[in-house]
């Protein structure tokens, strides 16, 4: 799972007067991954060493002059290039102290950007769409520059990309509400123009991000309504009909981000790798209306992988260099390291849950729940009757927002119940998430407010997941609502390992307190003796059934105390023994983990605590037993391996044809 780590400040900001501008014009990579060149929106260029969080040198243009393009670093010549006042190109080296004394050249047309990739040649993009290599431009600075764009067309964003040793300049323009994408290939020069599909009228993309992979250029763009689209352009098909009619650019919706009320104003989406997108300026799905969040979304599974609240105003700017996100917010420029491990379904959802068939899902009602055990059936939430009624999403939202945030517990319960019984659950998916996160945040804020049955009902709709309201499980743990915990573990496909571990810890601990009494009541047969009570067994089974991924769970498991580990291992051992004796473990009323799941957990707990366990005298017998399990498993596998060949032969064996009493056959002799 992707993760955002603790960030640090690179520098302070001097925001512009309007407060919509962060004061940073651009950040470009310098010689290595640890150096960046930051160009502010007025006069200065600063070189930072990122890990030291300090500036190495700084250059400023004279008062009255302004930098109109972010400075870039040409790694081939070890020179910096910047444009001031649109037309003056300045080139200098690290040792130059005064920018005014450095080389400059004035060109005949306004420059939009200078781009330079590491190892590549600097490229100049003019405001009217023309592209020149810096060298050829400087050989004749006053050369005429053609106009590529139409009259009212203006560049919005640009970048360059090296694909198969071909350099591309990519820029997008806007003309009367239409957006266009230009792909300019250098050497030989070709230009291809694409028209972006229109979103809702009046909306134009807020941010672009481009990357190159598998011979395709991949363009990602975010609209103010929270839609993130991806368009893929093949590099090969380029060329030919230069300047012809703009081709339509097909797009696919990657993400529909929650935008809360209104449209996004300052937001940015940046491709991190093929499966992850960093988004800034979009509200966190479970944290109310505030938009000051940096989130990483997995586009393959549409799950929120990590989120971080950024203090202060977000300007909708985001850069990424070598696993670091650079984000100006409030009055600082923060650097936030991140990690996007190769994603797979298993790591996105953790170890796969036991495959559940439709029948099993229905049977879940017969699983004893925490509440059943404690209070009998009365607390069991009634499944809402499904009657269809079309209610405008908007009205519902408004109405509920109001009641959920202010009304007393009983009223909220009534309202939500009414809503759930009124409408088709499937249509309500976004609403349920919103409701749940509102309830959770209100409960967190107000210790007196808690609606267990309502939350349980919402979880029961199965339209919630952990990404939607990440605090729900922790809230339930905090309020010691183990039934809700159980439900969440059962229905959420994406519970992070840290939360799973927190549940495990809480379950072990809480039952230790009431454990003695439980043991008396437990109806398990004397042989073998279950080390925990029935309640705890139910809860622990739920933990065992949760999806997880080893690498992320292991560090959290280490937090368990040795006493708890021993108890947990004893329980796992009990389960193992029970299931290896019993041919049909699924016959128990409990939702029971499979033998493999049990063994996986045993291995993991041992991995996490082996050294501690070896030193713990009371764990000695346990370890010996577990060792014998391993031995027996190894023996079993080797025995199975032996008969594998024979069994395969059985499979191959032809079914002998029954000839019967009399038949006429044809044989051929040679």
């Amino acid at each position, binding site marked *: 799972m992707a993760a955002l780590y603790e960030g640090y400040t690179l520098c302070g900001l001097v925001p512009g007067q309007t407060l919509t501008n962060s004061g940073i014009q651009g950040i470009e990579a310098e010689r290595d991954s640890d150096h960046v060149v930051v160009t502010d929106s007025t006069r200065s260029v600063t070189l930072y060493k990122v890990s030291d969080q300090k500036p190495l040198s700084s250059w400023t243009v004279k008062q009255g002059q302004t930098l109109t393009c972010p400075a870039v670093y040409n790694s081939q010549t070890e020179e910096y290039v910047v444009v001031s006042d649109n037309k003056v190109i300045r080139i200098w080296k690290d040792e130059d102290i005064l920018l005014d004394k450095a080389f400059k050249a004035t060109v005949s047309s306004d420059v939009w950007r200078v781009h330079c990739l590491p190892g590549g040649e600097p490229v100049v993009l003019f405001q009217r769409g023309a592209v020149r290599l810096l060298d050829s431009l400087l050989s004749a600075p006053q050369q005429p520059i053609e106009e590529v764009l139409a009259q009212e067309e203006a560049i919005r964003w640009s970048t360059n990309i090296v694909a198969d040793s071909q350099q591309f300049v990519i820029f997008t323009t806007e003309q009367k509400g239409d957006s266009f994408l230009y792909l300019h290939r250098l050497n030989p020069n070709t230009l291809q123009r694409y028209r972006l599909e229109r979103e809702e009228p009046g909306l134009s993309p807020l941010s672009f991000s481009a990357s190159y992979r598998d011979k395709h250029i991949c363009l990602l763009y975010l609209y103010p309504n929270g839609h993130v689209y991806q368009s893929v352009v093949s590099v090969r098909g380029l060329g030919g009909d230069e300047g012809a009619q703009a081709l339509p650019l097909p797009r696919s919706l990657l993400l529909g981000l929650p935008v809360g009320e209104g449209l996004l104003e300052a937001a940015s989406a940046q491709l991190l790798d093929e499966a992850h997108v960093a988004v800034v300026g979009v509200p966190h799905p479970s944290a109310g209306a505030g938009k000051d969040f940096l989130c990483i979304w997995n586009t393959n599974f549409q799950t929120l992988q990590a989120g971080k609240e950024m203090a202060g105003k977000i300007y909708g700017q985001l850069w990424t260099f070598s696993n670091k996100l650079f984000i100006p917010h409030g009055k600082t420029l923060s650097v936030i390291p991140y990690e996007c491990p190769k994603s797979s379904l298993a790591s996105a959802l953790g170890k796969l849950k036991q495959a559940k068939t439709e029948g099993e899902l229905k049977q879940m009602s017969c699983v004893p729940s925490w509440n059943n055990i404690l209070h009998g059936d009365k607390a069991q939430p009634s499944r809402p009757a499904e009657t269809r009624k079309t209610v405008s999403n908007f009205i519902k939202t408004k109405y509920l927002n109001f009641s959920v945030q202010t009304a007393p517990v009983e009223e909220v319960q009534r309202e939500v119940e009414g809503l759930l019984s009124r409408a088709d659950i499937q249509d309500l998916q976004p609403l349920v998430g919103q409701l749940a996160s509102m309830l959770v945040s209100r409960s967190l804020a107000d210790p007196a407010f808690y609606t267990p049955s309502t939350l349980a009902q919402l979880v029961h709709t199965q339209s919630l997941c952990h990404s939607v309201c990440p605090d729900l499980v922790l809230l339930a743990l905090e309020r010691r609502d183990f039934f809700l915990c159980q439900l969440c573990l059962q229905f959420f496909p994406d519970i992070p390992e840290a939360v799973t571990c927190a549940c495990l810890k809480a379950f072990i601990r809480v039952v230790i307190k009431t454990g003695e009494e439980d043991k008396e009541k437990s109806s398990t047969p004397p042989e073998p003796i279950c080390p925990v009570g029935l309640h705890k067994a139910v809860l622990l089974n739920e933990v065992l059934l949760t999806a997880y991924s080893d690498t992320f769970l292991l560090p959290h498991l280490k937090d368990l105390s040795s006493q708890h580990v021993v108890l947990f291992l004893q329980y796992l051992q009990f389960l193992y023994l029970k299931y290896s004796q019993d041919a049909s473990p699924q016959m128990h009323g409990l939702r029971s983990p499979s033998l493999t799941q049990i063994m996986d957990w045993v291995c993991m707990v041992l991995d996490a605590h082996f050294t501690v366990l070896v030193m713990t005298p009371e764990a000695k017998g346990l370890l010996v037993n577990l060792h014998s399990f391993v031995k027996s498993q190894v023996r079993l596998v080797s025995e199975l391996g032996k008969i594998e060949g024979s069994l395969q032969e059985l499979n191959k064996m032809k079914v002998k044809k029954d*000839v019967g*009493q*009399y*038949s*006429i*056959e*044809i*044989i051929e*002799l*040679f």
Partner: protein
Amino acid sequence: MGEFKVHRVRFFDYMPSAIRAMAFNSHTERLALVRADGALEIFNFADHYFQEKVIPGQDGRAVEALCWVGQRLFSAGLNGEITEYDLENLRPRYTVEAYGGPIWTIGSNKQGTLLMVGCEDGTVKMFEILKERIQFQRNLERQKGRIVSLSWHPSGTLIAAGMMDMIRIFNAETGKEMQHDPESREVVVWSVAFLSDYTIISGDSAGKVQIWDGLTGTLVRTHLVTKWDVLCLSVSQDESSLIAGTSEGTVVQFQFISSTVDQQEEEWVRTRTFKNHSHDVRALAHTETAVVSGGMDTQLVVRPLLDKVEKNTQESAMRKIALPHRSLVCCAKKAGLLLFQFPDHLEVWRVGESDGHGEENTHTHTHTHTHTHYAYSALSPCGEWLAYSTVSSVRLYRLQYNNISITKVGCSTLTLLPLFSVSVIVHTALFINTIKCMSELALFFSSSYFQLDKLSIVAIETTVTIYGSVCLQLHCTVPIYSSCPTAIAIHPTTSHLVVVHADQQIFEYSLVQKEYTEWSRKLQKQGLHSLWLERDTPVTHVTFSLKNPAHIILHDMFMFCIIDQSLPLPESKTLLYNQMTLRSLPEQERIRHSHAFKICKNFKHVMCVSLLEDHSLVVVERPLLDMMSQLPAPVRQKKFAT
């Protein structure tokens, strides 16, 4: 060679009957075997275990025991009669009533002068063996209860008798009872063996093999070998090994050896267990090199003792003889009819039309009226004439199929037979594949043919003689070969005689030139392929293709073979069973790789292969599994991992 339409027939419900008793003659290496229906079979162990003689049984004559006296064979049964067989003419020579009720056992002294039988009434009766007959001599002291088993001490002075609950020892000269060994509870002593060191070994219904001291009457040792009965015992000639057959189908071997290396004293030690039968082992013979056993499951099993034979040779291979070594099926080639011979009736069936899968049966049963069983039977190619023989007579019938009827045409006693059969043959061109007898000549071989109006073949053991059938003059005699002929046929167009022997050799003899044909000489010069010689079932039938005179069709139990005389013979290094290889080759290549022996192993437990006039094959199979399924349930079934 091309495609053949095969009528695969599996509805011949032939069921051999259970083996009841056997006796091995170590001088002649013949095994006499008698079945529950009274049929007697003689196997020649010196000649590839070939079943060379069969005397059909008779209703109501259940033979219980067999005994060789020199070359003479005696049997006794529950009908209370002692029978001596005429092994030349293949019929009982005479029977003598013992007047003691059912006879359970028979035995002779080593000198071959006396025969004794154990009777139901508790008497042991002694008969003097004369040259032509046997004569009652005296009774031994009468006991209470039947005499189930007897064994004569090699010296001839003492006789051990196994009875209900006890073993008694008689003085053979005085007839006085000497000792008895009481058994503790109700058991039947099924078998006793009296060894020359006066040890008596008994096998009883309590599942024990017990070793007694015959002089003192004390029990030396008890071996519990089964939960059920020990039914029979057999001791090797040198008295060093003993085998016991049980109801479980096992044969347990005991050897007279010292049980530990340093121990001087020898004793009977249980050594090996053979499990070759699913049912009771009723009869055993301990030959010098092998254990021969038979019982309820009808199979004769020859299990070589691996310490007595050379390993990995043909001699060391176990043999199971399940089907008779003669043809019980006769095929009318022109009419497409099949004649099945059962012990007590005959069935005629018609093979189906080309598209049909259901068998067509035209029926017909004939029953013997004399309660003697069929020996041989034959059907003429047109299907109109049916002939059969029993031990005492030959009968000829005419069949009509439109409204099925059967008319007896002729019946002859054996002395009238030759004239009679000749006249039939002349008029109907009937092949009678049956046994014939002339006044001084015994014709008992199954492959005796009456060919058109010309010739008849007579094979007596290893000699094949050809007679002109009109006047029964000797036409010629085929050179004598050391092995029994197992199948003989005369080619209808070339008049070549084809003989296949028990050692798998094939000879072709020209009856016109009265010498071996060129092909036969070539075959002998080159020698048959080693794999051909290693087959362990005899060829039981030879027939020819009407279309292609160069084709000889023959079969054994596991394959049939079409010999194409126009093709080169397989050399020792070529692949004998090459049909699969040829199939995979392109057509042009096949000729280069093909040889004269076209062997098809698609069919198992073949009882007859014949080529009909329309060039389609008839294959009659009798799967062993079908036969096994007709047996009663065994006392003990092998369950997995028990």
